[in-house]
């Protein structure tokens, strides 16, 4: 009787160990898929090489201008604003900063005034704009929330891409490091990078 119970127990143990192995494989596979999704950026911007015309706000004279396109309700915008805040507090305050919160066509007034809008408005030296119909975003060729463009004092494009390391993920990342290096007159390894965020959802057109 004891031998029979021991055999049943041993068989059960083997089953649980096999289940554990399957579980581990499934978890690792799911984790890999999640990692891939998280690390895959949106469509890159067709960023103009020179400061575009027809904008509601002027380019700053005598200092670089940084523009961030933001979807007000995208979760990733929270991380982008956080990274912008870090950028400004760690040596990037010499730039004239504009954050354009896209208000898609057909949405009511104030739709874009989300928590991230309010948070961006509280950042010192940051100009926050409501970009109705993504008109300005289109002029910068942006497709994805979080797209950040840096123009030098002469209006030439220095950088375009995201300043977060993954979808909705705060923390040190290559994009922010590149923008900071360029703002401090240093050489960046690249002048572009992936942007992680929601689609701003308007027809692509650049003037």
């Amino acid at each position: 009787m004891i031998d029979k119970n021991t055999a049943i127990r041993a068989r059960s143990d083997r089953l649980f160990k096999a289940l554990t192995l399957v579980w581990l494989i499934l978890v690792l596979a799911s984790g890999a898929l999640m990692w891939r999704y998280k690390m895959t950026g949106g469509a890159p911007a067709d960023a103009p090489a020179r400061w575009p015309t027809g904008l509601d706000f002027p380019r700053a004279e005598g200092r670089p201008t940084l523009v961030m396109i933001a979807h007000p309700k995208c979760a990733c915008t929270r991380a982008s604003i956080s990274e912008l805040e870090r950028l400004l507090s760690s040596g990037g305050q010499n730039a004239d900063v504009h954050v354009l919160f896209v208000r898609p066509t057909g949405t009511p007034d104030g739709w874009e005034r989300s928590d991230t809008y309010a948070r961006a408005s509280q950042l010192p030296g940051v100009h926050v704009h409501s970009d109705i119909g993504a008109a300005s975003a289109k002029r910068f060729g942006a497709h994805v929330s979080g797209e950040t463009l840096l123009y030098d004092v002469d209006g030439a494009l220095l950088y375009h891409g995201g300043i977060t390391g993954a979808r909705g993920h705060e923390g040190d990342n290559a994009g922010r490091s590149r923008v900071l290096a360029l703002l401090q007159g240093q050489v960046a390894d690249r002048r572009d990078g992936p942007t992680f965020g929601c689609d701003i959802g308007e027809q692509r057109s650049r003037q």
Partner: protein
Amino acid sequence: MTNSAAKPVLGAVSDQKVTERARGTALFEERFLASHKRVDRLFAYLMMLQWVAGIILAVTVSPYAWAGKTHTVHSHVFIAVFLGGLITAMPVLLALKRPGWETTRMVIAVAQMLWSALLIHLSGGRIETHFHVFGSLAFLSFYRDWRVLVPATVVVAADHFLRQMYWPESVFGVLVPESWRFLEHAGWVVFEDIFLLISCITSVTELKTSAAQQAHIEFVDRLEREMEIASTIQTSILPRRLKVSGLDVAAKMVPATEVGGDYYEILPTKDGCWIGIGDVAGHGLRAGLVMLQAQSAAEALIRSVPEDSPSSVLCGVNRVLFENVRNRLGSEEHMTMSLLHYREYGHIVCAGAHEEAIVWRAKTRKCELIPVKGTWLGAIEDIAAATVETTIALGEGDLLVLYTDGLTESRNDKREQFGLPRLCDLVEKASGESVEIICETIVTAALAWSMDRPDDDVTLMVCRQVGIAARAAA
């Protein structure tokens, strides 16, 4: 049928120690397993709590993915529900179906660290969420099994390795970290691991000590119960009826421990009685058990042949003891014993090796010492040659005092013995009292001498010859 397992039963203290150690080990394993099961259940609840927290976090922080003004449920919500559910499922299943199993806590350790990674992901990499890693390691130490820290640390190390490969800034803050930066991060985890490891080992040691103490307490309790039973048995076989024709008898035994090794006996016969007194070497349970055998053997022999001689009965008792104690129990206990066959007209035939008998003569009001000749019982197979019978004649009012060496050799705080002269002196002084008072007076004095902490069992018998004159007159 032969008995091949003739090991010394009475000397089995070492065996009992082995049993105590085995019980201590069993108690430790039982408590360790119970502790593992308890922590498994705690983690099962924690896993489910983390799952709910993960879903709430995803729904709160990133409920929707947007494309312009349209939105869909954010992938974080699906990840929290399905990946979180997957991570939770296996440890909860094992905690319910295989609580206490080693694999269960290893899976729980891995799952807990995976939950750290998932919560960091769902919170958008908030630095505060990274504290979950250190909290989880501390929580895992509840198992008091340092081995669970290994898979947990491996998961953290693997996470750091992958991040260093694909996204170094997320861990190290810079794009190209120095080679030693990995050691810095790993060092903090190892730092906590070392303290948790020490804590686990210390805790296990304490648990083992506690189990050993519990086993010892159980052992002592059981021993005390057994001693109590043995004491009750021994007390119950002492003679209750001390009325003998021609003799007033009083007796008292004070064992040094719960069970004594002294012996006294009164077995009335048609014309008098048999009186026995003896002392097994040492005291305690082993001595008490040998005493019981001697008492049983002597009583059986006397009752079967009441008119037998004391030397013949002693030889029979010796054969029983020698066979049982030496051959069967493999022990070396032996004892002194004197048997006195008293007849009511005051004639006593005695034999056996024991302390000198004291006879207080009513005529002279002085004590006489009567040597009793013989040898140890249970030491050699045949004692017939060494057993010599002696006769004693008691006159009207004479006192016969028999005692064991526990009385005369009891010591005071200066290590001075009570001594035979002091005993004789007390007998002479108290001789006018009843035998009961004489007996009580002497025993009380001896106990007071040893400050109520006798080193050995104390036994005293006081007999007074009465009725000779009345019978003669009749």
